[in-house]
């Protein structure tokens, strides 16, 4: 077939699809394997999918479900180290897996486009944005340079980018993550593709930015009637966009249904578990405990950049304070100050009324014992070369001087406390799952015999079900051991699940603080209201409602 007849055939089939005939994309029995030397693993295992023109399909699943791999397969692409091991990917009637590489490449960018998770990493730092946006249009679709740039500027304006006429002249590092994500959507749209694959486009963004991107995606997909595959691990997000949802687990389809039907009556218990954390809610304790931790007017800076400004807060014995804020709000920095990893430039940290030295080196071993920090990523927090026994045993030896039989007994006790089997003690961290590793980190903190736990986003790297399990366990431990907890998170559902009190931070300062229900239900500050309004609900009409509210109430983003 020569190029001309091929073009004609494509035009004909495009017409047919638009007339609502055959599906645009069909995956049949798709199998993708890792192709390494060792044992071969199936990361996508017999997937059947159908997508019609103009339809939005949500792919949801947790880490390792194979959702990104399936998304990339829609472009006939596999990552290095993987290979197509079976099945077919029919786009507009042609099997992308059989097509010669050049033909497959010609479809990419022009008829099937891709929007990646991290816009910051996915733009080439060496080129101006406009050059990258129009690249496919001018080099592959044969559009004139001037026309393509004009079109790009119109798309920038439509996506509400600031200064749409000149923003393209900038380099990627000169824009924020949210802005780059919008430029990437423009780049995907430049050839008016039939299908766009959105691969977790909002995961790396803060909630307030996420809402804007979601609105952009929905507007543009509706405006051009583009079909889309929207990949995410967040059910509330996908609910706002998708006509139909496919739930994935371990490379297989668990359940598939139209969005509203799935939310109303999920068939599989796994589907229900996707909103597990939202189902936990702690009954707040009355705040009569004596204050354990007192922060008084803390200011701190990294070099000459101030990151904390006059922060005061109090954690009561046995209580949990949730520290909430977006990235850059200084919440993790505050944890480092309390732990002694960063010396404050002003203010003091008191534990049970006694001042803690600012610097870690000046704190006594007993002072170190009483405050324990648990990190976000258990992978980074456990030494991959130390067995679980060594990891938990070292603080036992250091802080309580336990040896031999007594130490072994205490090790087993701690494992039982965090609901792990004692036979894991001799494993290396690499042999454990993410949830198990985080439990080991908690056991290690408990081994010291602490009074205050600082939990820095300890559940945010984990899957929903695992998160729910760990949050429930933390509550139980707190009650049994009388622990106090400073819990840092950006996730409001987690706050509801664990906190007695809430402190909202923004740009290094406290915006609002108080009892949990008071802050969450009747916030008194504009920023708190904005933050809470941006947290999506598992409700298909949430985004529509929010945007309507904003339109009528005047733009709340002015508060930023």
């Amino acid at each position, binding site marked *: 077939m020569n190029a001309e007849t091929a073009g004609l055939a494509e035009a004909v089939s495009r017409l047919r699809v638009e007339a609502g005939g055959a599906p645009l994309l069909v995956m049949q029995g798709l199998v993708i394997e890792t192709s390494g030397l060792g044992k071969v693993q199936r990361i996508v295992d017999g997937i059947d999918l159908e997508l019609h023109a103009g339809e939005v399909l949500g792919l949801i699943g947790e880490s390792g479900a194979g959702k990104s791999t399936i998304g990339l397969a829609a*472009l006939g*692409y596999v990552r290095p180290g993987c290979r197509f091991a079976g099945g077919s990917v029919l786009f507009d009637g042609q099997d992308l897996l059989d097509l010669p590489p050049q033909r497959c490449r010609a479809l990419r960018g022009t008829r099937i486009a891709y929007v990646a998770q991290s816009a910051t990493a996915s733009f080439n*730092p060496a080129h101006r944005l406009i050059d990258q946006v129009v690249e496919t249009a001018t080099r592959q679709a044969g559009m004139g340079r001037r026309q393509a740039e004009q079109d790009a500027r119109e798309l920038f304006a439509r996506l509400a980018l600031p200064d749409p006429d000149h923003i393209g002249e900038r380099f990627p*590092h000169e824009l924020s993550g949210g802005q780059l994500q919008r430029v990437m959507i423009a780049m995907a749209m430049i050839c008016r593709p039939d299908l766009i694959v959105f691969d977790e486009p909002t995961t790396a963004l803060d909630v307030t930015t996420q809402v804007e991107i979601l609105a952009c995606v929905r507007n543009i997909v509706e405006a051009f009637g583009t079909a889309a595959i929207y990949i995410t691990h967040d059910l509330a997000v996908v609910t706002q966009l998708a006509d139909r949802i496919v739930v994935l687990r371990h490379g297989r389809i668990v359940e598939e249904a139209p969005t509203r039907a799935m939310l109303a009556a999920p068939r599989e218990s796994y589907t229900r578990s996707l909103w597990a954390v939202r189902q936990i809610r702690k009954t707040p304790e009355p705040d009569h405990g004596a204050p354990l931790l007192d922060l008084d007017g803390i200011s701190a800076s990294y070099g000459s950049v101030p990151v904390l400004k006059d922060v005061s807060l109090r954690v009561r014995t046995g209580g949990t304070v949730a520290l909430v804020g977006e990235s850059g709000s200084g919440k993790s920095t505050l944890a480092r100050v309390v732990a002694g990893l960063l010396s404050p430039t002003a203010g003091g940290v008191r534990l049970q009324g006694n001042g803690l030295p600012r610097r870690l080196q000046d704190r006594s071993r007993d002072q170190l014992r009483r405050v324990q920090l648990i990190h976000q990523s258990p992978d980074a927090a456990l030494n991959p070369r130390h067995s679980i026994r060594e990891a938990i045993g070292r603080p036992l030896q250091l802080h309580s001087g336990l040896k031999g039989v007594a130490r072994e007994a205490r090790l087993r006790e701690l494992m039982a406390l965090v609901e792990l089997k004692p036979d894991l003690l001799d494993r290396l961290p690499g042999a454990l799952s993410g949830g198990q590793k985080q439990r080991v980190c908690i056991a290690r903190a408990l081994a010291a015999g602490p009074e205050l736990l600082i939990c820095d986003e300890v559940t945010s790297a984990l899957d929903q079900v695992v998160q729910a399990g760990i949050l429930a366990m933390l509550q139980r431990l707190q009650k049994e051991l009388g622990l106090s907890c400073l819990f840092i998170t950006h996730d409001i559902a987690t706050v509801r699940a664990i906190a007695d009190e809430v402190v909202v931070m923004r740009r290094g300062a406290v915006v609002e603080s108080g009892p949990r229900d008071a802050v969450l239900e009747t916030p008194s500050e504009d920023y708190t209201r904005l933050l809470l309004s941006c947290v999506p609900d598992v409700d298909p009409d949430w985004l529509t409602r929010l945007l309507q509210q904003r339109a009528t109430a005047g733009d709340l983003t002015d508060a930023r």
Partner: protein
Amino acid sequence: MHGVLAMIAQRIALGVATLFVISMLVFLAVDMLPGDPAEAILGQSATPASLAALRQELGLNKPLVVRYADWTAGLMRGDFGRSLANDRPISELIAPRLGATLSLAALAAAIALPLGVLLGILSTVHRDRALDRVASTASLLAISFPEFFTAYMLVACFSVGLGWLPAISLSSQGGFVETLTMLALPALTLSLAVIGYVLRMTRAAIMGVMASPYVEMARLKGVGPWGVVVRHALPNALSPIINVVIINLAYLVVGVVVIEVVFVYPGLGQLLVDSVAKRDIPVVQACCMLFAGTYIGLNLLADILALLANPRLRRPRQQEARA
């Protein structure tokens, strides 16, 4: 732009400071000898008269600071002092040899650097295919061989076996063709090692960038294999490639020492080695300063070019586009 200018000024200042410290080290080296430097240099056979003469010659009777000041002032004027071995002014000894060394290095650089970079790029475009594998193995061999082995292999082939080229490059007289034939084997030896290094490092630099998300994005936009390497990976691998090219240029100037010995080529390296053997310390010091100066200067150049090749540094983020 001011940020970059400031950074460049800072690098230059650091380079000058380094050169200064190195000049002190080179100068003081003589005084670090245990006991009297003159005795150490002349050894057992020294007579009191010759010792006194040498002390006078080295200026050992003057205080250290004065001697160092005299010496550096001389360096600035291009006066390196006099050779102990034949009492000639060192600048006279060095001038023709510096020219010879630089022309050899220049010839090798002109062959090896463009070829190395080009082959490196070709290797990435054809990665894991025949061309890449051959290039990878050949370059590994080229850099594993000691220079004198490569040199004697080439001599065995082209001089002993084929009789095309001279085995030693003694004469510095003659026309263009003679000069070129004389330079051919030393330049070829140097080139082989440099091509090997530059090829491998260019390939590694580009491959490092090939794993980044924006290269995957380019593939997903339908960009072909050449476009991916040339338009998307290469611009971001520019800094390390410039770096490796200039470091190898520096190597060419310094690394000629061995090659000059093999081919008895009358360059600066040969002079340095002879002077070390004769313990003609003033000449050693002068050669060391010349080599170190060139080396530091080229490394500085590499730093500055790498700075300029980075758009992040060229256009520092002043402020985000306002929402």
